[in-house]
């Protein structure tokens, strides 16, 4: 079920005690631990210093590590990203914060033409251990440009790893691994989960790594495939379905690139039905890749077409209407109902 990828060995200190942290706190803790362990780690972005970031994820880091380690930059995303490329070329491990998905777009050329390609174009001589943290997706009542889901742009760009945690524990462990990775990682932090809490064991990075999907809930009738902010939606749908006597399995991808074909195929083959749940607009989005792969690889196990429950193909709507855009528990259940059970 877990990955075929071996993670780069991180020298994790002996795991500390388990704590209950919010996702935001877990990320803060991961940054703090990385800054403390490795002097080449730098945090940079807009308002990451005294303010601690607009989501307070970098709270206290400048106070603890100084303004040279947690750095407020000028307000220019392409500049930040390009600056990070140079830092990484010269021995640093920059962790960049983009304030919101949509405000990373000015850096798109730097990401696609340099961050993603540097290792390849130099035949491995220049590696860019950059992590780009992006407060990601919607569901928080944000006004326009504050709720985009940009994973499909990045996942389609060879050379980037793309990761989206759905629990505080994953947020901690995957971010530690991302910072330790020699490859650039786009690290998508579901905004609406910043305040969700869970058990985290700081220092413990031994769980399934980047590249591994995990089964969050066992089930036998159909498989829900989700990631990031859609995992709780899938889990809730499975809970409701259980009351109706239907057993839904939930797979959390965790890592979009590398993608865990083995785990996903095994899951879908065990149930014969699949629904992909993702918050981004569906058309030509990442969910299409999941659906296409499952269709290609599990064709003969499928009792029904792979369904997608995604954001609508419209610009992210204003707060008062966002509930109609988001993949809801009801929509997931409707899709499950549609999986041609009469044929079964």
């Amino acid at each position: 079920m877990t990955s075929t990828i071996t993670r780069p060995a991180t020298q994790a200190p002996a795991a500390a005690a388990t704590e209950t942290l919010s996702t935001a706190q877990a990320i803060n803790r991961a940054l703090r631990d990385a800054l403390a362990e490795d002097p080449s780690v730098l945090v940079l972005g807009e308002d990451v210093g005294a303010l601690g970031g607009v989501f307070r994820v970098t709270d206290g880091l400048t106070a603890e590590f100084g303004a040279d380690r947690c750095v407020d930059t000028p307000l220019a995303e392409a500049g930040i990203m390009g600056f990070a490329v140079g830092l990484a070329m010269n021995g640093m491990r920059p962790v960049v914060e983009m304030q919101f998905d949509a405000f990373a777009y000015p850096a798109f050329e730097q990401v696609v033409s340099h961050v993603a390609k540097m290792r390849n174009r130099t035949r491995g001589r220049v590696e860019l251990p950059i992590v780009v943290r992006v407060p990601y997706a919607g569901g928080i009542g944000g006004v326009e440009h504050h709720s985009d889901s940009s994973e499909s742009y990045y996942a389609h760009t060879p050379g980037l790893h793309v990761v989206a945690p759905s629990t505080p524990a994953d947020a901690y462990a995957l971010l530690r691994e991302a910072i330790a990775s020699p490859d650039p990682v786009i690290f998508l932090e579901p905004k609406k989960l910043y305040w969700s809490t869970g058990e985290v064991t700081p220092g413990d990075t031994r769980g399934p790594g980047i590249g591994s999907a995990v089964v969050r809930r066992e089930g036998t009738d159909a498989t829900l495939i989700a990631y990031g902010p859609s995992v709780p939606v899938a889990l809730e749908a499975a809970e409701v379905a259980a009351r109706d006597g239907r057993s839904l399995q939930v797979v959390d991808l965790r890592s979009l690139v590398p993608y865990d074909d083995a785990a996903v195929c095994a899951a879908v083959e065990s149930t014969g039905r699949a629904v992909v749940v993702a918050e981004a607009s569906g058309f030509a989005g990442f969910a299409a890749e999941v659906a296409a792969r499952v269709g290609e690889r599990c064709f003969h196990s499928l009792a029904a077409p792979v369904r997608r429950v995604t954001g609508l193909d419209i610009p992210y709507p204003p707060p008062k209407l966002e509930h109609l855009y988001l993949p809801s528990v009801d929509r997931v259940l409707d899709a499950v109902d549609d999986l041609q059970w009469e044929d079964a």
Partner: protein
Amino acid sequence: MLLGPDGRPTTAGTGTLPPPEDLLRGYASIVAARRYNEQASALVRQGRLAVYPSSFGQEACQVAAAQVLADGDWLFPTYRDTAAVAARGVDPVEALVLLKGDWHSGYDPYERHVAPLATPLATQLPHAVGVAHAARLRGEPTVVLALCGDGATSEGDFHEALNFAAVFSSPVVFLVQNNRYAISVPLSRQTAAPSLAHKGVGYGVPGEQVDGNDLAALLTVLGGAVARARAGEGPQLVEAHTYRMQAHTNADDATRYRSDEEVAAWVGRDPLTRLEAYLRAEGVLDDERAAAVAAEAEELARHTREGINRDVEPDPEDLFRHVYSRPTPQLEEQRALVRDELARDEAASGANVTTDTRQEALR
């Protein structure tokens, strides 16, 4: 600076004082803008607005930006410039639609020639240049006034917009409201230049600084810039020194990055008290007039409050109506899906069940 912090005319400025009637008009607008800022902030506290980036303390800039423009001119505001939008004559309720959460833009940009509020920083600046260039191609006398903050000057789009305007000699006035912070980041992290007005030099664009809390100076300097742009002298850059008296938005905590003393020092430079002192000293403003102005502002606040408190149910069909001039087949399918869901919900709620029927089962 034409008016000192105490409201006395100074000799420090180079311009001449605008006529009293202009200042009086500006005074009324500033009073209204101030009241508008207060009202909007109150509406946030009451949960009626999703968010409000207040221009409290920057009202002189807001008002001047509207006052120097002719009807055919265009204003390009940011999220912080709703007071300028309202001062230009847009319904103040419509100016807040974005921040209320009903839709992304409330007003018709063509009605008063006001572009939609821009959130992605500096991105509206090249739009302003395009609008100005199109007008110039048709021989129209349009001037475009584009607003941005100190932080936004660091963005590549600021650079590209000023350069396009200069190369095409477009009639655009760029007004930078330098309120010394970009959210929490102070000006010193934004630039090492002697001033933001100096940024004009690299484009061949004249740059000027002005006290952004002095309406008289603003009207003179901005008015001059607009006149020069209209006269074919190309783009102009004006940096107005001002201060954001409140937090970035209600979601912000300004105590994390600036001191009470710093804020207090700016209270003494308030654009409203300064102008009022001058107008009273000049005998242009008396209690009666001031009361009338206050009443007008109160009326505006009432209109705003009532408008925002009135719940318009946003139409779900709008989600699909304007993505393209006509919906794609894919959007038609999705529209049908949502319609169907809403109809089912309605049927269910008619049967006295809550909306999210299935989820409800869990609670």
